[in-house]
């Protein structure tokens, strides 16, 4: 029985995505994208695609969050819109 976990994680993924789009502070967006990637990685694991989930965990949740934070460090933290 993995249905409930599936649904819970999927809901959290959508919540993270919407929150990342609506938040004004870009640093928060970067961290939310990290959380989004990690939840996606859980979702891949639930579906049995362990290779994909490994890539998502290392690239999506790990390095790309660091790149976002580095880019924000050198630009501005507030969005214009």
């Amino acid at each position, binding site marked *: 029985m993995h249905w409930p976990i599936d649904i819970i994680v999927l809901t959290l993924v959508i919540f993270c995505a919407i929150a990342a789009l609506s938040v004004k502070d870009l640093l928060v967006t970067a961290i939310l994208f990290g959380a989004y990637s990690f939840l996606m990685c859980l979702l891949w694991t639930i*579906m049995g695609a*362990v*290779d994909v*989930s*490994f*890539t998502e965990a*290392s*690239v999506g949740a*790990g*390095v790309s969050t*660091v*790149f976002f*934070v*580095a*880019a924000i*460090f*050198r630009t501005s933290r507030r969005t214009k819109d």
Partner: protein
Amino acid sequence: MLYGTGEFPNWGDPKSPASLHVSDYYIEKTFEDTGVPNFVTAVVTDYRGFDTMFETAVIFTAGLGCFLLLRDFRGKKEHYYRHVPTGVILHVKDDKKTLKVGSEFEYMDKEWVPPDLINKTVCRILIPFIQIYALYVVAHGDYSPGGGFQGGVIFGSSLILLAISYNLKTLVKRIKEKLLGIFAAVGVLIYAGIAAICMPMGGAFLDYGKLAPLVPGDPHHIRALGMLGVEIGVGIAVMAVMVIIYINIVSEGRHDEGL
């Protein structure tokens, strides 16, 4: 869109179009063909090895693009130095006047904050373990999930952790920019080289089976070894490119100060 998804085949349905044609072949024949227990690695680096080779080339191009767009060789007008015994920070505004960096003075960032002892110590202990794990992931790519891309990214992030926990100069001093560039290129060349060696041995490009006379040992294991070599190439290239991208973004291409 939601209405359309109702027509989709169920998840894991054996009758869905995606699992009807080639999946059976891979599941039944992969171990026989290649001797590799992990189908995903076998498909990625053997059956569609061309695709992965150009993926590595794309990663290399990403690093090259980051370098060409962001790298700034002009250097800063102002310099900050720290007098090591007293901790006094000097701000030198004249470009011509430079202090000799050694045991007495050291370079300093503008946004410098003293590295936290706990962060520093924890990262110093963690980094070797992360690197060992990255090597494990690369080496076991054909037995367990993971492979060159993941291992390379993990190794690269361990180096990025060094830059974050100390400062960027510590990383740049240990790993020169030139070395990173060479690593990125060598990784792609290892992949292409292993693939190209197959051709004079009488096979097609990327036909690892033909490498058997070159490597002592069980000839049934040769495809797994070929994949391992290719994964190592991918790992080296990805590691170097991740560090190149990080350094260039965080220091605005000047490689002097940053996060």
